[in-house]
């Protein structure tokens, strides 16, 4: 596989090849080389199957990390391709022409992370979050618990006690905090 790493490095500046398992490796690219590299992997290297595509919000680094998982059935090998994009300007090339289902993943990423894929079919349409008005919900800075607490009422009658605090109140209330 290291020959592949070398070729990807030479052609697309790919780096950080990591063998997670004998049949799974990960690699990192610049986002602007992504579509060409994926097309190359599909057409020249036998990675013809797109398992899925998604993103990770690496908010600490100010980026969304894209995750494209490809599989070559001939080699019996899967390859996860990563690329970082700026969290403030999350736009990346669409691959809907490479794989016929890719637009669905892109539509999902648009809705869940706010990542835009210009030209991707129906990319601005609602996917699973019909009527959702909040921010893209998979972003790390969207606090789903706070949202839920603010939106829904707790069931009445629920109250819990912390054992240590309860014992202090019962057994030694005089102790200083």
């Amino acid at each position: 596989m290291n020959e592949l790493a070398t070729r990807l490095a030479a052609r697309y500046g790919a780096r950080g090849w990591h063998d997670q398992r004998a049949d799974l490796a990960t690699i990192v690219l610049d986002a602007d080389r992504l579509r060409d590299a994926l097309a190359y992997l599909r057409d020249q290297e036998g990675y013809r199957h797109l398992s899925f595509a998604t993103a990770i919000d690496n908010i600490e680094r100010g980026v969304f990390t894209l995750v494209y998982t490809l599989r070559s059935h001939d080699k019996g090998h899967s390859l996860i391709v990563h690329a970082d994009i700026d969290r403030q300007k999350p736009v990346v090339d669409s691959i809907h022409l490479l794989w016929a289902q890719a637009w669905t993943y892109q539509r999902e990423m648009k809705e869940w992370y706010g990542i835009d894929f210009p030209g991707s079919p129906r990319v601005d349409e609602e996917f699973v979050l019909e009527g959702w008005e909040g921010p893209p919900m998979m972003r790390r800075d969207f606090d789903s618990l706070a949202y839920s607490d603010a939106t829904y009422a707790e069931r009445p009658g629920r109250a819990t006690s912390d054992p240590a605090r309860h014992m202090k109140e019962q057994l030694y209330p005089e102790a200083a905090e």
Partner: protein
Amino acid sequence: MDIKDFIAPFAVWKRAFEKPFTVKKPIDERPGAPRYRGFHINDAERCVGCGTCEAICMNKAIDLVPVEGREAKEGDSGLRPRVDYGRCCWCALCVDICPSGSLNMSNEYLWIDSDPDVFRYTPGVDKKPWDGAELGYRRAEGYRLLDEQRVPMAELGHREAVKSFLELVQGYSRAQAEKEADRCVSCGLCIASCPAHMDIPGYIKAVREGDLDTGLRLLYETNPFPEACGRICTHLCEGACSIGTGGDPVAIRWLKRYIADQVELSAYAKALPRAEPSVGKKVAVVGAGPGGLSAAYYLALLGYEVKVYEKDGEAGGMLRYGIPEYRLPYPALDKDIGYIESLGVTIKRGVAIGKDLSLSDLRRDYHAVYLSTGLPVAYGLEVPGDKHPRVLDGVAVLAAATRGEELGLGKRVAVIGGGNVAMDAARTALRHGAAVDILYRRREEDMPADADEIREAKAEGARLIEKSIPVEVKDAAGALAGKAALFVWNEAEMVQKEEGKRPVPEAIPGALREELYDSIIAAIGQGPDLSYVTEEDGVPMKRFKPLVDARGMASPGASPKGGAIFAGGDLVNDRKDAISAIADGHRAALSIDRHLSGKGA
């Protein structure tokens, strides 16, 4: 189209004459499988209300609620889990993790009601038809989410141990400590049992996360003797540990020691709080034991000028003179004391109050005085012949050992008593090459000493003679007269005199035994020495103890007559252990601060 495609479907008509697959009215008689994850059951007696079920529940379906008729007590919060079936997903992780194993599931799955709010109950408390169900989900044998086994502590073998005064317990390595800390479930049941109410889950978390500075800071919030307590504490916390309900309790004491051992004394100041600016007031402490120094530490932190008066040559009190160095090596104790001194606490060693200075001198020169003089005087055997020169006092023997004096115990030693001092004396004698008998008037299980101490004393070769009531000490005959003594005891049996009280030993008539010993060490208890307290100090006494109020104050004092008197430690409390003295010292420091700053009224 094939003709078969028209005919084949009719072929299954033959099944019309076979036994059908379906079952009649299955709902009437369809119990869940033996492993079915149905409604919860809880053995409320075994449950200790630790809340681990609540912690693991990913649905927040479990609340811990107070239960009528169940009070909080040692090792039991008195709370019990209540399950909200509007949220429960029947995953049974609560069953898998339950430390005591009290929480299980029945195989009952039917419960119909028109009121949606009733599907919430406290298993084992609110009566349900499936209470006590034999069938239902139980975690598989040998399978649980928590580790019931403690990380073993490396210790010197008993054969090696008796040859020297080297420390027995070797301490945890980092990997061991983190693994042991991982066993804790942070329930906090232990906090109430600790006399100092240390933040035990907090410092165990610090160990787990490798943040020892935070760990040390948490230790010092309530206890300035982590090195000492990490070794010799009576660890009541471990008796309350919820993990102990289904396995070995978490080794809380060893984890405390691990933190203190790992941080160098020179790095303490970086981790621990600085003293407040001086408030311009002075406090005297009498007795540099753990209680007195604890008070001194917290007073110094609050900005008081503190001077500690110690009659002995070294500070540490019973930690130094009462506990042998194989349990608490002096460098460890010196580290604790050294840090307290580094905060500006002055320890006047070799100054006895009542001899070199009087209590009224202190009251005149200081704004407050804290008495923490402990129990230095050993009780005698109170039998004929107990003034024989070979009848020794346990505390004195241990102190002499600390001072490095020649003990001259001889070859055959009897230790009379069943407390920790007796065990320490016996094990010290063993290390001096003696054969040791421990004689105790009740049974082994009645002995007040820590179970570990008893077990180790026996393992090191001491012989335990139970149910032996001292009768007399007789001088040895002939050449040995004055150099050895015969100890005479009466064999006893345990008699249940009053229902509900513990049985008492009663001498069996005629069953007298005697044995010749080179030394007889009496370790049957100690009393206070309050000769330095005079009537004019106005300290109320009850049963030879200073009577103190909830703040630890014994005498309010009034200007110009003198500063207020506070007292604590073994002198006052009934627990008579280091951690209680430390807790008393801490409490007294806060009370003195309130009193002197005028916040106390």
